[in-house]
């Protein structure tokens, strides 16, 4: 699927992106599954540009390919075709290790089902991405403390996920996504399992993060949630609606 034609001398970050370059740019991205003699397409000819600082919502009916697109942009999924540039880097030509390095440095992910680790405390769950980025322990401590404070969950740092409500868990999920200061947060139905009040709380948080400069790309069914952003992209049957 990928032809390795270029190498990465240093992992790019948001500061290294020239002024008008889109943060995310796709050209003709497609994904399909073999079904019998043919192919079933999940995404067709996706052409997309997202600039730094945008708050974009991807909407569409179930099965439209929203989450699939999000996972491709988040570099969780490697089986697709087309071209995808992230911070000017041609992701489609990079080796898995190089893509993982960019993903680790620049992308934070928020899941619908929170996906916290049950055996780790709130503190440890938030700290996890930093440990994967080889941040020294003393630095990790101060970063995590700062994030706990920002999110108002210092009192809960020693609790386990099973001891939190759904909204609190998703708060921790968001905190974990931002702790490494990513350039972009990808959120897959972040309020899907939450009560409306809790959902509102999360969306306010996203808005604040966006105002502070974080690019946010969310998949959502909710028009109310989409209203927090400044652009909506609609998908239907794998195609972008113009």
């Amino acid at each position, binding site marked *: 699927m990928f032809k390795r034609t270029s190498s990465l001398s240093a992992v790019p970050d948001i500061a290294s992106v020239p002024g008008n370059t889109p943060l995310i740019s796709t050209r003709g991205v497609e994904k399909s599954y073999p079904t019998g003699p043919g192919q079933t397409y999940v995404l067709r000819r996706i052409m997309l540009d997202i600039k730094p600082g945008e708050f974009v919502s991807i909407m569409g009916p179930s099965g439209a390919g929203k989450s699939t697109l999000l996972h491709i942009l988040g570099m969780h999924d490697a089986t697709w075709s087309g071209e995808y540039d992230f911070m000017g880097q041609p992701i489609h030509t990079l080796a898995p290790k190089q893509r*993982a390095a960019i993903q680790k440095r620049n992308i934070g992910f928020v899941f619908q089902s*929170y996906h916290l680790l049950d055996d780790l405390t709130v503190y440890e769950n938030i700290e996890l*991405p930093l440990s994967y980025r080889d941040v020294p322990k003393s630095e990790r401590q101060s970063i995590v403390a700062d994030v706990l404070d920002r999110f108002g969950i210092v009192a809960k740092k020693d609790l386990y996920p099973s001891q939190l409500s759904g909204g609190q868990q998703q708060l921790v999920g968001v905190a974990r996504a931002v702790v490494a200061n990513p350039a972009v947060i990808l959120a897959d139905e972040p309020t899907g399992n939450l009560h409306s009040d809790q959902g509102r709380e999360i969306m306010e948080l996203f808005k604040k993060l966006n105002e502070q400069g974080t690019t946010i790309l969310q998949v959502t069914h909710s028009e109310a949630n989409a209203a927090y952003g400044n652009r909506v992209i609609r998908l239907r049957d794998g195609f972008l609606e113009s």
Partner: protein
Amino acid sequence: MVQDLTLALRLLFKERGFAVATIATLALCLAANAAIFAVVNAVLLRPLPYPAPDRLVTMFNAYPGAGVTRGSNGVPDYFDRLQEEDVFEELALYMSTSVTIGGHGDAQRIPGMTVTPSFFRALRVQPLHGRVFDDADGEIGRHRKVILSEGLWQRLFPGRTDVAGTDLRIDGEPYDVVGVLPSSFGFDPDSQLWMPAAFSPADRADNRRHSNDWRMIGRLVHGVTVMQAQRHIDALNARNLERFPALKGFLTNARFHTPVILFQEDLVRQTRPVVLLLWAGVLLVLIIGCVNVANLASVRASARSREFATRLSLGTTTGRIVQQTVTESLLLSAIGGATGLLVATWMLRGIQSLGLEDLRGKNMAVDWQTLAYTFLLVAAVATVVGMWPMLALRRANLADIIREEGRSGTPTRHARATRRILVTSQVAFALVLLMGAGLLLASFERVLAVDLGFRPDHVLTGDINFPPARYPDQAAMGMAADRIVTELRRVPGVAAAGLTTSIPFGREYSDSMISAEGYKPAPGESFVAPSRVRVSDGYFQAMGVSLVAGRFIDARDTETAPRAIVVDEPLARRFWPNGNALGRRMYLPSRDDILAPPPEDEWLTVVGVVKPMRLRAIERNVAGPGVFGTYFLSYPQFAEGHVTLTVRTQHDPETLIGPVRAAIARIDPELAFYDVRPMDARVEGELIDRRATMLLAIGFALVALLLCAIGIYGALSYEVRLRTREIGIRMALGADPRRILGMVLSEGAVVVAAGTLLGLGGSLLLRTSIESHLYQVRATDPVVLGAVAGVLLLVAGLACTLPARRAASTNPTNALADQ
């Protein structure tokens, strides 16, 4: 119960993979246990097939200070002990023998026994035809009687029930057949005929005391204990010490005593440790197999935990659920046990084919005791395996179980800890078994490396008995031996030929006192009784023995020549630690006065010193405390009736069998040449027991290792499966595949390391149990420890690698797909 059984059958059919894996594991483990229990039962537990076998005792003279830890009994001992009527209802002497039946051209050598007439009364044996011996048959002149085994009777007199009174020619003399014993009489599996012992006054004379050629069996009077019998024998020995003061000093210094032991106890004395070791081994294999099955059951129960929680919330009880799960595991165990019993019958055939000496003649079969034992094991396994998963359920919070799935895919800490403990215990048990097998293997290698003191390759051996009727004295036997050896040397391909009265690893041994000129034992020091062997000219050369000094026994050492003796190095050092043994004089002490020098013509002059030979057992030391070496006398000067020929050739020794037989027949066609085999085969026979035990131990250890590897692989694979979503999350958060690989491998490593340490500790704790089976290897041998731990770690590492690699190749998108 029927409902549970029906549900169990349905569920197991639905989960055929689980059922087949469980049944196969249990069948293998239960088969091994059933087979070994059949051996245990036949050898250790089953009472002897005689009435009141717990009243049967044996006894033997021992002189540990002289180097004889187990001798036999003399004829005077028998008559002394017969007086102890308060203690012994019956006493009998017996010895193995072999005789020639038939005549010209059809002479056959038949193994048998010579027994006092009381022998069959002591055992309370009833004949199949005719009668057993009565006391009159033990009188000289009336003793040419014989009792046949059923097998020999059918061969010689097929179908004849009137065989009593028939003549049978034995060693050239006519004997009356008086009876036939049934094939169920298995006192000695080799014996095919029995002849009465008739003792002359010379045999019973006091100067024959401590000439120990006979084994003894007795039946205790009802109510008398072994300890009481021992006290009587000790008192008898003490009285005799006072009666025969000439021997008192020697016997006291030699620590002479006569142990009285239960006959069955004596039979299993040497076998018991080996059989118990094997039994322990298979039980460990069963435990390891059960752990695998328990893990499988536990995994299955976890998958059904929501079903159980729902049933509980609907009103059933834990006991009811336990009943159902135990029924399922009982069904599996029963099928596994039945299959195992079938496999056990094949395993038993395999065990018997290993040729263990102490299993010969034993009826080992899957009998009712083995069935009962297997049934007990099945019930125990079913209970443990069925109840184990339910122990966790009892402690769980229902709400937690019902809400359990959906968070992060991380299995509960308790379930994971339980699986770890089970796998750790498997690793520990497997290591204990591997250690045992490794130590036995190392011991076997040491035994193989022992210097026998002779070269067994390319040597043909075979026995000859000179019947007293035609070879009435030493001169006749010596002359015949000389002619045979000379004739053998003319056979093409023969490089050297000789004969001996005690072939290494044969059954003819003799220890006899000897002393040296001018030698006076220190106060409290015993005269020594080294091994005594008589050899002809050419024997040492045929056997490839190394000469240290002087010469071998040779053609100069005729019957009338000055008496010569060759000693081995340990014996030479004993008497002349600083000097040269050559030319020194030795003598065989008289019982009347052991310090008195012999007549001039009975002095033995040391003509040669040889390297020590292993005569009785490869592992028996040839030097050290309590070991006094061997002396070799010239056969013509000390001839006796039974000899073993030794013929060295450059070719395959079996090619000489025909020519050697023909050469013997040219000298005396009525001489049977029997027990013919290469010397290598005799050495090999010495190794059978140790090799068989080692092979069985290795077999159990390999099965345990395989089960353990399957257990580790299964447990870790299940962990990875349960944690697929967690792994996906970690990868989504930035963990690279190597980190995931390391995470899973370290989980496995912790379990394997803990199990290895526990197993090493267990091996050290159990070292005294295995030390008696080892030869020149310590139970804590670091090389074996290291090698075994290395093998286990390698296999366990491989078992961990596959699931770890699977985890590392997880696709985060698929893992996280939760819509």
